[in-house]
């Protein structure tokens, strides 16, 4: 057996057949002269003529681990620091068993099997949909999509197809990060199925949607009105029912974006007029993962009209051939890109299905009382924090009432920029809220602070005390 140039001389731990004798036996079995001969389909002038210039291999797990930990030690974390960052990715408590369950090899490593061999996984997915449906007040729920922004983008495209209209109204206070995703999903003007994104102003005093501006912009072109509660700037949209009613009267769909962790204390959007509900799944038992924990969902009433526009995978409960036994299977799979290629509904692919299992575990752990208790705690703590910060001279809370976990803090009267304040906070082990000064110049030097159940009173007092020293 001649060694093949460029291959490892010791069997690699991830590759069972990287043993010379096995390769030789397999080659002999098929009657091929060499491994190189197997690549005969590739013309010589397509081939790379030199070995790859990659950093030295580290097949030793012990060495690899040391290398990774050595580099990652340069990070500072939200565990060792006190963080008030939110804005689309939030630090909530992740129950230990969420991690245990998503770490199970049966869930972690595979893709698809049959409905019988994947029964447990399919059931977990169905339980994700079922429990989320209870929280948002909807009977038809898809498997997750990549993120809240992607969910909103798909929902807007659903609405455009349903109404045959090509304009969507969104709040001007929308998260620019999420809006950037929505804009990507709404084709630009030069293209035939363009969807125009029009911003509806927000009320400067309350942060809520400006109803006069909404009335002015709603028209026979409006496919959907999209709004969120709590919105990006933290405020709860008090006029949800009226907005939905106006949309309906104009023949438009109402798409409501929510953070489901708030729905133990906030009304389910299905109750005040949502046609399509979208939102995030990350708060429900998934670590922030530097943004790699985000996920999104789409839910509607169980009406064929909506069901037939879903781009997501959909899993339905069904019977099996054994009387009395239940199983789960895909429904409406043919309308996806897997069934219809470019004629499918947008596209379908790998998403964040593992997180759906974490979400299912999370929702069953909390139950109705857990969601209520958690929601109340967050609301009280965030309001406590807002008031504590508002007591600092020069610091103002911009929308002081009726928010969930996030609120806007303005520093104009301190004469300091958010960037300078953040730097000083960082030096003291605190990550301040997201700087809004570039996104919303009209809010001046403002930041979006996020307080959740992971904070306690000492944390908040420490933030207030430290900020007080910094802005003095």
């Amino acid at each position, binding site marked *: 057996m001649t060694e093949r140039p460029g291959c490892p001389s010791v069997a690699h731990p991830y590759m069972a057949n990287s043993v010379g004798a096995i390769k030789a036996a397999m080659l002999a079995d098929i009657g091929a002269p060499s491994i190189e001969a197997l690549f005969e389909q590739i013309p010589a002038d397509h081939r790379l003529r030199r070995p790859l210039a990659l950093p030295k291999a580290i097949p030793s797990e012990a060495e690899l681990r040391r290398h990774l930990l050595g580099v990652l030690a340069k990070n500072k974390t939200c565990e060792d620091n006190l963080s008030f960052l939110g804005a689309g990715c939030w630090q909530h408590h992740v129950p230990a068993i969420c991690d245990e369950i998503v770490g199970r090899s049966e869930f972690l490593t595979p893709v698809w099997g049959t409905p019988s061999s994947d029964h447990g996984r399919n059931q977990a997915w169905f339980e994700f949909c079922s429990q989320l449906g209870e929280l948002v007040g909807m009977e038809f729920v898809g498997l997750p999509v990549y993120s809240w922004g992607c969910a909103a983008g798909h929902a807007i495209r659903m609405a455009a197809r349903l109404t045959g209209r090509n304009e969507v109204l969104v709040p001007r206070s929308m998260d620019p990060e999420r809006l950037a995703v929505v804009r990507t999903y709404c084709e630009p003007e030069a293209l035939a199925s363009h969807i125009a994104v029009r911003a509806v102003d927000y009320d400067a005093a309350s942060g809520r949607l400006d109803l006069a501006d909404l009335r002015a912009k709603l028209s026979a072109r409006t496919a959907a009105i999209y709004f969120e509660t709590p919105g990006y700037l933290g405020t709860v949209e008090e006029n949800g029912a009226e907005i939905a009613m106006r949309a309906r009267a104009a023949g438009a769909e109402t798409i409501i974006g929510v953070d489901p962790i708030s729905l133990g204390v906030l009304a389910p959007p299905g109750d005040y007029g949502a046609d399509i509900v979208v939102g995030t799944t990350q708060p429900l038992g998934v670590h922030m993962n530097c943004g790699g924990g985000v996920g999104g969902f789409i839910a509607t009433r169980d009406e064929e009209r909506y069901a037939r526009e879903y781009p997501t995978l959909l899993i339905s409960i069904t019977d099996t051939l054994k009387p009395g036994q239940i199983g789960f299977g895909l429904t409406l799979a043919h309308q996806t890109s897997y069934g219809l290629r470019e004629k499918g509904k947008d596209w379908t692919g790998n998403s964040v299905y593992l997180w759906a299992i974490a979400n299912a575990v999370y929702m069953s752990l909390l139950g109705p009382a857990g969601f209520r208790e958690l929601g109340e705690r967050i609301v009280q703590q965030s309001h406590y924090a807002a008031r504590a910060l508002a007591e600092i001279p020069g610091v103002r809370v911009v929308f002081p*009432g009726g928010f969930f976990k996030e609120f806007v803090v303005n520093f104009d009267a301190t004469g300091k920029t958010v960037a300078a304040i953040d730097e000083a906070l960082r030096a003291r082990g605190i990550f301040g809220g997201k700087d809004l000064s570039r996104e919303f110049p009209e809010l001046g030097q403002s930041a979006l602070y996020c307080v959740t159940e992971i904070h306690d009173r000492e944390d908040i007092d420490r933030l207030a005390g430290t900020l007080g020293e910094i802005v003095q």
Partner: protein
Amino acid sequence: MMKNGGLREYRSASWDEPVVMELGYPGRRGMVFGEVDAAIAAKVGAAEALLPAAMRRRRPPALPELSEPEVLRHYLHLSQQTLGMLGVNLFGTCTMKYNPRAGEAVMARPQVAETHPLQHADTLQGTLELVHGFDLILRELSGMDRFVFQAAGGADAAYTHACVTRAHLAARGELGKRDEIVTTIQTHPCNPATAATAGFKVVTLMLDERGYPSLDALKAALSDRTAALMVNNPDDMGIYNPEIKEWVRLVHEAGGLCFYDHANFNGVMGKLRARELGFDACMYMLHKTFGAPKGGGGPAVGAYGCTAELARYLPGPVVAFDGAKYRLDSDRPDSLGKVREFWGNVPQVLKAYAWARAMGAEGIHEASDLSVLANNYMEKKLLAIRGVTKSNPHIDAWRMEMTRYSLGVLKEDTGVGVADMQHRMVDFGVDAPWLSHEPWLVAEPFTPEAGEMWSKEDIDYWIAALARVSEEAYRDPEIVKTAPHNQSIAKIRTDGLEDPERWATTWRAYRRKHRKA
């Protein structure tokens, strides 16, 4: 030796596990958060009063009420009722490979798990260094000039390309004029689908007898309306289009961009690069080729790479390095914007980095060798099984890392088709193989992919399982047609799944439709 012809007598756990919505007892708790601090309550009062009355929840959600160990046991039972790659899984087009647990363990630590994407870059230097390091690795593997990881899957990377194409055309004043994207019927459906979602018309080329479309067909499709070519090569029949360089030249000549869906990279990694073939952009699936776990369908990453000319259109932020420090650059006026919030499924990117470092250039070279060797080994043995044929049987060349097979003969002879086969394979502890994307180009298709992880014994086991299914089909087809026999549940009934009166994606809908009081 094992009895039963070498096949294990696998039995799935069957817990007869109820749906979680039926479990529990009123008042039970699985997670408590404790009473809010007295000073907080004193200062702000009750939560209720802090929220607008109209928006308060009036009815509690009908979620189950369970203790913590009950929840744990329920989901452990569900995991045990999932075969999930615990046997042999050769699911084609997905490259089932080992997901090193070292990566899992390290990325679960707070240095990754408890970090926020909006933290100041100074506090994320470790992550940024590894992300940048991985970008450099992919640049070397592809010859591209820059990679981004925002796309949350292979399809999302294809979508990224469609959006890069839009931005590129807009910059040249050609958006709306060049409105066609050319692809082939053997290119993954996400390519035409994302092209259409981005607003393009799709032109799909059919295969000729060589297994790929002819240059004439391509030439006829190209015009001053061509925006881009989106194509994978090799395809999932194991056929490599040797004219691909000429394709790229022709598309460029017509003024279009060329995107290489390089998700079928496992058999050619280290052997050829997108750059030398002339492509402007390519994508890799980190959850497929680079050792990151699949999670039953994500979190995933489509790593999108392109030439320096297109880099200005990439979604942001991108990682920048000045030789001393890493930062995130969001100030990129020509950027297409974003395809997803933040900068990607970071732990998956870091796991892929860890995998690539563990493999190194030699390991990667070896892995493509082994995956092509294993496929051809399988092919020889599978074609010896009665009732099994392959696509394009007249093409007398070693296939790449996959071969498309057909049970058309078996079906004609015995009435047993690929769906029956899938149901029976799992009875031996073997995950069912991938069949084929639609439309099916061969009758009763199936597509195993051996990859580099599985041992020769594993592959032999898989072959033995298929041989057994064939033997049963000819001897006593009912065994196969009534399979599975060893799973948690029997075969599901599919007749109600497409019926609006009967489908139910939630427990609520199920109760309303099926358990009418």
